[in-house]
C-alpha cells in the first residue's frame, strides 16, 4: 500500500508545526502580497530565502524539495513563455533586462508555491480542521474537511482492492484507446461508489448515535491558543509588510544587471 501512504497523515511536532495554523495562513497571505508587489529579482529572492529557515526548522526539507521539483516544470514553462513573448513583442531583440524580468516572474511563482508548500507541509490536517472549527466557518464544513482527510486513504485502499478483484476476474484496465480505457474503469467505479454510499450511511448512523445536532452551541475538546511562537510570527508578518511597503514606495530597486554595468 505504499502508493497510498502519502495520503495518510502523520503527526509531527516541531516549532513550526506547533504554530497556530491561522497565523501561519496569514503569513502565507503576507508572502503572497509581498511577492505580488515586486517585479524584480532581488526582493523576490529575499522572500524566497526568508522561508528556508521554516523548512529547516520544521525538518521537512525532503518533502519540500519534492514539491519544489514538482513546481520546476511549471516554472520552466513560465520562464520560456515570458522570454518568448518578450522576444516577439520587442521586435525580435533580446536584452539582459528581459531575461531578468522573466526570471523575476518565475521566481515570483516559485515563492508562491514555496509559501503554500511550507504551509501545507507543516500543518497537520487535524490542526487545520481545528483551525476551521474555531474560526467562523460553520462546523459542518470543518467536519466535512476532517472526514474527507480521514476517509481518503480508506477509499483509496478500497479502490485498489476493487481493482485487484476485477483484474482477477479478467478486467483489463490498460487496454484500448482513450474512450475504451475510461469505460474500463466503470466496473471499478460502481462498486466503489456503492460502498462509499454505504459507508456514509453507516457514518451518519454513528453520528446520530453520538448526539449529532443535540446542541446549537457545540463545544470543543481542544482550544487553539496563541503561544510565544505565534506572536513572534505575527511580529515577523508585520515587519515583512512594513518593509515591503517601504521598499515598494520609497526605494527604487536596482536590477541585477545594473551591478554588472549593463
Amino acid at each position, binding site marked *: 500500500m505504499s502508493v497510498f501512504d502519502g495520503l495518510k497523515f502523520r503527526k509531527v511536532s516541531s516549532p513550526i508545526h506547533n504554530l497556530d495554523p491561522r497565523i501561519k495562513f496569514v503569513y502565507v497571505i503576507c508572502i503572497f502580497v509581498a511577492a505580488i508587489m515586486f517585479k524584480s529579482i532581488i526582493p523576490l529572492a529575499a522572500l524566497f530565502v526568508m522561508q528556508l529557515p521554516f523548512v529547516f526548522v520544521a525538518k521537512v526539507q525532503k518533502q519540500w524539495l519534492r514539491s519544489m521539483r514538482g513546481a520546476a516544470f511549471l516554472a520552466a514553462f513560465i520562464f520560456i513563455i515570458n522570454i518568448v513573448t518578450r522576444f516577439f513583442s520587442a521586435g525580435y531583440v533580446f536584452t539582459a533586462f528581459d531575461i531578468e524580468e522573466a526570471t523575476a516572474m518565475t521566481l515570483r511563482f516559485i515563492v508562491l508555491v514555496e509559501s503554500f508548500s511550507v504551509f501545507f507541509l507543516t500543518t497537520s490536517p*487535524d490542526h487545520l480542521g481545528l483551525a476551521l472549527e474555531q474560526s467562523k466557518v460553520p462546523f459542518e464544513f470543518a467536519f466535512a474537511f476532517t472526514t474527507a482527510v480521514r476517509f481518503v486513504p480508506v477509499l483509496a485502499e478500497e479502490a485498489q482492492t476493487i481493482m485487484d478483484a476485477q483484474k482477477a476476474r479478467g478486467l483489463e484496465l490498460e487496454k484500448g484507446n482513450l474512450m475504451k480505457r475510461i469505460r474500463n474503469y466503470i466496473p471499478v467505479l460502481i462498486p466503489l461508489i456503492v460502498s462509499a454510499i454505504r459507508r456514509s450511511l453507516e457514518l451518519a448512523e*454513528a*453520528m446520530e448515535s453520538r448526539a449529532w445536532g443535540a446542541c446549537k452551541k457545540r463545544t470543543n475538546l481542544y482550544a487553539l491558543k496563541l503561544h510565544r511562537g505565534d506572536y513572534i510570527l505575527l511580529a515577523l508578518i508585520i515587519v515583512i509588510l512594513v518593509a515591503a511597503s517601504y521598499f515598494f514606495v520609497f526605494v527604487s530597486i536596482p536590477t541585477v544587471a545594473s551591478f554588472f554595468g549593463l
Partner: protein
Amino acid sequence: MALIEIKNLSYTYPGASNPSIHDVSLKIEKGEFVLITGPSGCGKTTLCRCFNGLVPHFYQGEIKGEVTVSGINVLEKHTYDMAKHVGLVFQNPENQLFALSIEKDVAFGLENLGASREEMRKKVDWTLKQTGIYDIRERSPHEISGGQQQRVAIASVLAMEPDIIVLDEPTSFLDPLSAEKIFEVIYRLNKEQGITVILVEHRLDLTAKYTDHLIVMDKGAIRLEGDPRDILSNEETRLIGVGIPKATLLYQMLKKEGFNLGDKTPLSSDELADQLLEAYGQR
C-alpha cells in the same frame, strides 16, 4: 419499571413488503448483561436501532407498538436526546470513527452535547482508561488495529455516560483474541460500572458465559428468551441455527453416553473442565 420496555413492536423499513420486526415484546432490567443471537437477517440490527430511535427517526418506515428506555418514550424523542441514555456500537469499527485522533473521536459526543472543556477532559480521560486505550489517545484511526478501533468506538459512546450500551456484532471484523479482549472490556463495564449491556453476537462460544439473559430471535420475532443454560440445551435453539457453544454440545453428548457431570449445563470450556474434574478428577 424495567430500564427497557418494548411492547408489541412491529416495524417495516420504507419500501419493504414484510416487517423486519414483528410483534416483539421485551423487558430488560438495570444492570443486566443481555445477549441477543439468531440467524442472519432475523432483525437483530433492526431491534438495536429501536433502542435509541434510529428506527424510526433515521430510517423512517412504519412502526407500531411502544419503546420505553430509561422512562423515555423513544418514539417521541430525537436520536440525539437518547444518546445520553443509550450508546450504540456498530459492526464495522472503521465507519464509526471520523475524527483524526482517538481522543477527539471519544470527545465527539460530548462536544455535540455542549459539555464544558474541563468536564470533557475528565470524562474522556476516564473513558480512555476504562477501555485501555489511554496510551494511544493521540494516534489517528488508521494507525491502530481493528480491535483498538472497536475499543475507541466503545469509548466514544461510553464518554457520554449512558445507562445502556448496545453492541451490534462488535467483533465480527476481529480475530478471536481481540474479540475476547473486547468482551472482557464490556463485561468489566457491566460488573464494575453497572452499565446495562445488550450484546448481539454469533460467537456464543466466547460470550455465553457472560450472560444471564439470552434472547434468540428468528424471522423478526423473539423465539426463546431466558436462562442461557436452559435455552442452549434446548433442541429448538439448535434448529433455529444458533451456534451452540462447543462445551455445551460436548456436555450433552457425554450426558447421552451416560456420563454424570452434574445438572448444570456448562457454557464455556472452563466450566466444562471444572465439571469433568469434579466428576472424574480423583482417580
